[in-house]
């Protein structure tokens, strides 16, 4: 997927999200790191009063004591009250669903949103939990041992999505 396609997907998704969720009570929460960047990009299409927050889900991972190494914890920055809000959760890739499970746990520790909807740039299948996206940029057929790498220019030089064999 090229940078231009990514931009087009986000613009189109912003329109659909606006139509289905409206702006009243809407708040965007991006999952660090690349979901947070995508959240900022979606926000550009929305009015100023729609707040954006960023969630670090590492403390909520279910493989926490199994991975051995410590995931680097970055700051959760949700500076608004999420009680009663309509939350648009944003991530780059939807795969097993475990990240989203962790994100939902992290989110409810901050309050009780009225509803939570999920936008992902890429849905690559192979779910291990009953979780689905409400807004999907693109569905991609993949093998379990392939890697879907989303690169965003804010941290990775250029915008692109690559599917690679796991090294």
């Amino acid at each position, binding site marked *: 997927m090229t940078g231009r396609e990514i931009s087009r997907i986000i613009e189109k998704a912003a329109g659909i999200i606006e139509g289905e969720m409206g702006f009243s009570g809407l708040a965007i929460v991006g999952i660090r790191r690349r979901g947070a960047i995508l959240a900022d990009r979606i926000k550009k299409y929305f009015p100023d009063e729609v707040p954006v927050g960023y969630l670090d889900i590492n403390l*909520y991972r279910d493989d*926490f*004591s199994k*991975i051995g190494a*410590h995931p680097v914890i970055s700051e959760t920055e949700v500076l608004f009250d999420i009680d009663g809000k309509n939350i648009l959760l944003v991530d780059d890739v939807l795969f097993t669903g475990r990240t989203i499970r962790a994100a939902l746990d*992290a989110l409810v520790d901050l*309050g009780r949103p009225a509803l939570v909807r999920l936008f992902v740039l890429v849905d690559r299948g192979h779910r291990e939990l009953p979780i689905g996206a409400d807004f999907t940029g693109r569905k991609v057929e993949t093998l379990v041992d392939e890697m879907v790498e989303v690169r965003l220019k804010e941290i990775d030089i250029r915008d692109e999505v690559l599917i690679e064999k796991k090294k």
Partner: protein
Amino acid sequence: MNWTKKDLIGLETLTREEIETILETAVSFKEISSRPVKKVPPLRGKTVVNLFFEPSTRTKTSFELAAKRLSADVLSFEVATSSISKGETIVDTARNIEAMKVDCFIVRHSIAGAPELISRNVSSAVINAGDGCHEHPTQALLDMFTVKEKLGRIRGIKISIVGDILHSRVARSNIWGFTKLGARVFVCGPPPIIPADVEKMGAKVTYNIDEAIRDTDVIYLLRLQKERQKENFLSSLREYSYFYGIDETRYSEIKKGAVIMHPGPMNRGVEIKSEIAERQNSLILEQVTNGIAVRMAVLYLTIGSRK
């Protein structure tokens, strides 16, 4: 950086990178204590034991809250009612508690080296919460965290530690930590309570408080332990206060933007004039708040990924 150490005994044995890893991790943990639900799950199912052989309110409470906010279970060991009073050695005490499958000991003891002795005899993590006149690493880490947060950096700043350096584990840990991160550390106090070898640790010595506070970015006051007077290290508290206490005149000499710190408990009217402790540039309560975030980071790094 990946954390590889089992224990945290002192800052003397940590590298600059390790200290920076703890401070960076603590930044992310600070936010958790300001939430309505002050709890995250990474230490769920882990057991942390407070093994305090010396009285403590602040440090013990701070460790307990840090562990609980990470969802660990905490057991606080009451030494007065323990089998230590029946003659058991500290190693046996620790090994018996460890046999009940715990993950971490937080140890405070009046004898330097006690936490290290325990750490060599247990496979659980051991965190030093202050041992004799040796080290109090988490206090120094929270002090560094507070300075970095308030002044934006540690490299290049001047910090003057004033008081009983000889008996202070807080001073020792801070000298190791701040010098490793590139600060200029000065120590100041009456000659009998300045240790002879302190310059070998990288600190500069001055016996003149006015020199210590001149151009300094951080004035770090230590608690003057009143019992030192009986041991003839000091002629009187009033004399100490006259020569080394921060009063209004000295306060007016400190440079703009400089901060005042104290590890507590304070002797108001001895090392610091009571009202000065309440001023805007006094970070004393800020230090206490940050202590939780820093101890959360230390617990997370030492036992977060243990199986």
